[in-house]
């Protein structure tokens, strides 16, 4: 039956994102270290970390609740599902019809919701700091993301990522101001969402500056591994999202042959590499900003998104 290959492709993507996510992180770290004239850890370091964490026993705080223990898996699961929905190397995968861009955003939102709750569960001051700052950042990042989604959807006439990607690939996109704005806004949001410099520093453990790390402070062992994994996945997701929206080249058509698939995978790897490189370069070039400068940063993203949407609404009628 025809269902089989589609299913296979779908599972292939899910497996691929799972495999490649730590690699991307490792790649970025490596590159950053290089740019800072350090040798840096090997590309496989993230895998090792994950495995080690998985093997370690979990140290739970006394009053950690079932929510605290369930959260990591759920966070991982939602992020994975979201990542599985983004067209990476092929469009129109079987599962991609069950959700669109807005759903992806919302799924990441659920992950964040759980993470913020987990940060509050033990009842430590740092968890509180992390959660409250996280939701503050999210309260700006999410609308910005949604407005970007609006812009894209208005251009492509659909919120369905596969359709959007196909449309973006086609010549009749043309060069649009709002598209550029959306791109910039999306990058800014991606930086914030993945707790990268200048919004947050994934490497720091300076209490007062950290956001994401503060929330997961109480986690250890396999739980921590799940959360780390989820953040790797998130990074991958955003890079591939940006790629499929603004560089939708080489994506395999629905029902395409193995060759096209392979080409798609290759193209995707290339995009990931490029994205990682850009990120590393950007992070080394900038410094982290104060927490209360972050709203301004994201507010700019929000405004860009709104502007882009407005332009779309107006231009639609012309």
């Amino acid at each position, binding site marked *: 039956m025809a269902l089989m290959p589609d299913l296979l492709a779908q599972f292939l993507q899910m497996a691929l994102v799972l495999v490649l996510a730590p690699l991307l992180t490792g790649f970025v770290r490596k590159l950053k270290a290089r740019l800072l004239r350090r040798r840096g850890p090997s590309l496989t370091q993230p895998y090792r970390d994950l495995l080690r964490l998985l093997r370690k026993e979990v140290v739970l705080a006394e009053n950690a609740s079932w929510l605290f223990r369930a959260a990591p*898996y759920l966070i991982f699961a939602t992020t994975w599902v979201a990542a599985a929905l983004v067209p990476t190397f092929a469009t129109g995968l079987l*599962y991609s019809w069950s959700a669109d861009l807005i*759903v992806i955003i919302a799924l990441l939102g659920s992950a964040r919701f759980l993470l913020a*709750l987990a940060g509050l569960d033990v*009842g430590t001051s740092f968890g509180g700091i992390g959660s*409250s700052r996280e*939701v503050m950042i999210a309260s700006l990042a999410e609308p910005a993301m949604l407005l970007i989604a609006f812009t894209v959807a208005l251009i492509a006439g659909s919120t369905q990522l596969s359709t959007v990607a196909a449309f973006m690939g086609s010549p009749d996109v043309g060069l649009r101001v709002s598209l550029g704005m959306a791109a910039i806004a999306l990058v800014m949001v991606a930086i914030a969402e993945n707790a990268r410099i200048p919004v947050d520093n994934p490497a720091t*453990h300076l209490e007062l500056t950290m956001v994401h790390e503060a929330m997961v402070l*109480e986690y250890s062992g396999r739980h921590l591994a799940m959360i780390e994994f989820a953040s790797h996945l998130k990074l991958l997701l955003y890079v591939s999202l940006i790629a499929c929206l603004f560089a939708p080249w080489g994506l395999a058509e629905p029902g395409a042959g193995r060759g096209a698939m392979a080409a798609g995978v290759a193209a995707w790897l290339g995009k990931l590499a490029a994205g990682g490189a850009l990120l590393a370069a950007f992070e080394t070039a900038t410094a982290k900003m104060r927490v209360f400068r972050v709203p301004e940063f994201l507010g700019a993203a929000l405004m860009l998104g709104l502007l882009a949407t407005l332009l779309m609404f107006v231009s639609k009628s012309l």
Partner: protein
Amino acid sequence: MIGRAALLLFGVAALLAVGLLGGALRGRPAGRRLVYGMTVVLCGSMAAAALGQLLDAPAAASVAWLPLGLPWQGAHFRLDALSAFFCFVVGVGGAAASLFAIGYGRHETAPGRVLPFYPLFLAAMNLVVLADDAFSFLFSWELMSLSSWALVMAHHQERDNAHAGYVYLVMASFGTLALLLGFGLLAAAGDYTFDAMRGAEHAPSTTLLVLALALLGAGSKAGIVPLHAWLPLAHPAAPSHVSALMSGVMTKVAVYGFIRIAFELGGEPQWASGFLVLLVGGITAVLGVLYALIQHDLKRLLAYHTVENIGIIFIGLGLALAFQSNGLPAAAALALTAALFHVLNHSVFKSLLFFGAGAVLAATGERDMERLGGLIHRMPKTAFAFLAGCIAISALPPLNGFVSEWLTFQAILQSPELPQWALKIMVPAVGAMLALSAALAAACFVKAYGISFLGRPRSDAARQARETDRFSLAAMFGLSGICLAAGILPGFVIDALAPAMQALLGARMPLQAGVDWLSIVPVAAGRSSYNGWLVFAFIALSASLAVLIIHRFASHARRRAPAWDCGSPDPDPATQYTAGSFAQPIRRVYGTWIFAAREVVEMPAPGSVAPARHREILRDLVWDRLYAPVAGAVEYASERLNVLQFLTIRRYLTLVFLALVTLLLVLAIWP
């Protein structure tokens, strides 16, 4: 064969009888169980009847007539698709609240002030939805206000409750009088039946005026900004199951009134009215959630959050009006469906959350989140249900809150077709507001749940809390079940709503039952689609897969230890993040102008042993700018006029004399 409308009227009559019974049996525990048990049964069966109407005979409206009320006209009742849907909402909410109350009512200090009015309140809400002429509508509408006022005054001894009830009643009457004027416009012919109004032709100016009055009347009841000020006072003041009804159901009845007038009775919708409603809805959504975020009183937070959801619903209604006025019935159907779906969703999870708050209140005697915490250990079941409510209301997949917001977004994406520039500018702005409010809602409920249920207990009351009774739990879990069901199988709800769309707009959303894999497709598969149960299944599957693999192949060893907390753990729960500190960043981002928030920090001089204090002063600007001046004006006028009470007889005679002379002068210069 007796019509369903008549059937529901019997239900209403039965509810009234139960009210009398409650008055008779007040004080006895048996009375409590009897009354609430009977209301469960009645509301349940009425919901079933309404659902039946909605499913099997949607097109044909069932009517009934009683020789009551306004003479030479009588009371007309009508059960069409729209009213059937709202009857269902009311029934479900009422049944759940009554079930909850069977257990919760045990903590009631003054049952004599609740039992008689509670069934009356339910009956009145059903009557509003059934009414088919202006008099019966307003009669039941005001009766609803009056009975809920009595319920708000149930705990009249507590501080501020009397004031809350007072503000509530005045605002309610304000709304009723606005609607009264509106119907005065519509019933120009002197025929008060809705049938006549449907038939009549209305000038565009009339339509606009009526819509404005309906917005004032129904809006003040639903709690749109700036008419919301009574809501966060009154809803928390009532007993929790009543708060749930007021917040979850009564506001929806108000929405029903608005839909009825704006889409059906008031004549052809104007695009300007769509603009107006969109504006109001957007502002309401954002302000509501921002106010909710800074509340520390759990029930008041929920009440403020109701304002936000009302805003979302009105955004949907505004879109529908805009589309309909521009001859885009299909898009209008999408927007209206989204709004009605959200009506259902909000009624469910807001009731659920109020039940949770009530359970917490009963267990700890605390509404102040600053004195709660760690309840997830002592009330695990309640905590679970409450969490479901939080996820649902934060519009997170795979629960139902997300679906309605998703549909609203899809409706917004339809709107570039609108010709008017005002709408072109307004709709994206409203979209941004909607997105903002959705994100803030998540933040708000992270706070609500994290502070009150997670962390360490902040007071002895929270430390000694016990799990609540089984009836309350049954109610909460039932509603959580509905949240999940509506979230993963939204197609059925959409199809059930279709007849109402057909009746109001002459169009409907595409049939969802046919779509393969039970996903929903608002417009076309190419544009957008969502499959709730698949998403849910994948999450569950992958999560359990991860658990399985890890526990099977990696370690499952576990050790309990003191919290790490960056190496500086602190045994004192006071060092946790409080509700205030949690909201502080957001308050700093949005708050300074919206709440005129001021923070007063008293830092003692180095060496002094005085404690450092940090106080935040938050004001509801609407109150200061709108309500206080009005109250002041009335005060001033009464003060000035009051002089007339203390004149000498001679001066009173002077008044008479002057009146006489004036009238004579009038007569002298009369042509």
